[in-house]
């Protein structure tokens, strides 16, 4: 199976996950969106050496993975390429930050500590975003964005891009397969063909976009955002869920809960 086919399958898997009737999936999309945004802000706001405090923030993704009945390993397999980005950024830290810090009586390189903090921040934020899209269908997510007064043109773009991402990936895949079948001795695509393949894909994308737009016009589309006209009401559970996690995130952001719990446990054992 080619990389593009894998990507298409991954998108289909995430869409199917979001459409399930799991308890977390049914939480109001605005609550989940706000929690995810708040969580990401809280994670990135940790000081660069506060690894112990940051570790506590694992509680939110860990709990949502369990509540949504999603596989952590599956998620890592699907999104690990994104993890490389914070890793690449963080890898420079040990070279630039030569200070040392004393932790539990051990001298640790501040550069390595800040590198690990950066990587973990990256992992947590990516996981939180993954959990949001794996538990919320795109139309509900767009509904939440509209509730936040994000311009309808932008929301429509997001909606249609998501819908047509797989169609375009499949289009690209069939072009690559057609190329490979007529160039069996070549490994990959020859650099000379890159330009024409990319050009063809662009032209096909434009054609597709035109056809879709025509189809929308013929069904009365006038630029207004009209998806999910039925209002999604807030239920008591949505509020409880939102307040609970907002409290937990604030608590873990303000106090090094993991460190305190560790000290307490250590004290009790001692």
């Amino acid at each position, binding site marked *: 199976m080619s990389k593009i086919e894998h990507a298409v399958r991954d998108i289909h898997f995430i869409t199917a996950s979001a459409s399930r009737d799991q308890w977390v999936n049914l939480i109001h999309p605005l609550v989940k969106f706000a929690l995810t945004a708040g969580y990401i802000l809280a994670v990135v706001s940790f000081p660069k050496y506060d690894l112990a405090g940051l570790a506590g923030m694992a509680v939110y993704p860990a709990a949502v993975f369990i509540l949504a009945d999603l596989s952590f390993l599956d998620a890592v397999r699907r999104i690990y390429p994104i993890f490389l980005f914070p890793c690449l950024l963080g890898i420079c830290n040990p070279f630039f930050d030569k200070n040392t810090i004393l932790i539990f009586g051990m001298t640790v390189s501040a550069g390595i500590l800040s590198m690990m903090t950066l990587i973990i921040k990256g992992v947590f934020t990516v996981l939180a975003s993954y959990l949001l899209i794996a538990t919320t269908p795109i*139309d509900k997510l767009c509904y939440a964005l509209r509730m936040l007064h994000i311009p309808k043109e932008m929301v429509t773009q997001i*909606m249609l891009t998501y819908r047509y991402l797989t169609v375009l990936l499949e289009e690209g895949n069939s072009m690559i397969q057609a190329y490979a079948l007529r160039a069996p001795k070549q490994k990959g695509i020859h650099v000379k063909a890159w330009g024409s393949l990319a050009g063809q894909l662009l032209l096909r994308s434009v054609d*597709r976009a035109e056809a879709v737009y025509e189809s929308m*016009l013929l069904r009365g589309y006038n630029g207004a955002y*009209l998806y999910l006209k039925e209002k999604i009401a807030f239920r008591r559970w949505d509020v409880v869920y939102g307040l609970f996690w907002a409290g937990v995130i604030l608590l873990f952001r303000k106090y090094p809960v993991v460190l305190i719990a560790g000290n307490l446990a250590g004290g009790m054992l001692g």
Partner: protein
Amino acid sequence: MKQVRIDVENLSFGYEKGQDILSQISFHAEKPESIGLVGANGVGKSTFLKLLVGLFLSFRGSIRINDIPVEKSTLPQIRAAVGYVFQDSDSQLFMNTVYDDIAFAPRNYGLPEKEVQERTKEAMSLTGTGSLEKRQIYKLSGGEKKLVSIATVLSMMPEIILMDEPSIALDPRNRRNLIGLLNSFGQLKIIASHDLDFILDTCGRTVLMAEGKIICDGPTKDILTDRGLLEKNGLELPLSLQKREL
């Protein structure tokens, strides 16, 4: 009673200046006719259908739908009256779920949500797609996508239905279902297709096009059994008639 009709007079159109794809076409149709539009590749069948719904307005001559001229100011009325089923269902279906796609048009026309629901359910019931209501579009088979495409148009309750190659990529069973479905509709229908057997089964009248012109317009049984006429215009007898000859 309001008359449902299409009147085209001396229609000419080209994508490039000076290169007409359609030339001096005159054509009239009214409810409840079912008309097959046949011709070899590139004779302008799809372009003709797109002109009828005002997707291109730089034509010469006149097009009137229910006595309303097709022009920029009348497009909302024209498009509310005419449903267009695209050749490629992936171009037609752009929402995430079957229900949302079928409900798209009634919602855009500002109908109350209760009526949107009623129309959507009725379109699904007519096309037998009720069981697909919550399915994601990408999970549908080719035949299911075609039926849903038709449902998206039926929910508009159009008086006229235009279809571009509706039988393409359908297996025999889905093709048979589609024929039954189309024959049950009372609207004015124009079906552009290369599938002459499909036209034979669904249309009482056929318009044969070649080189941007209407060559022949008459009963389907007369036109599609005329081997000489069909071969002269780049077509062949429908397969079912060829078999009979064997």
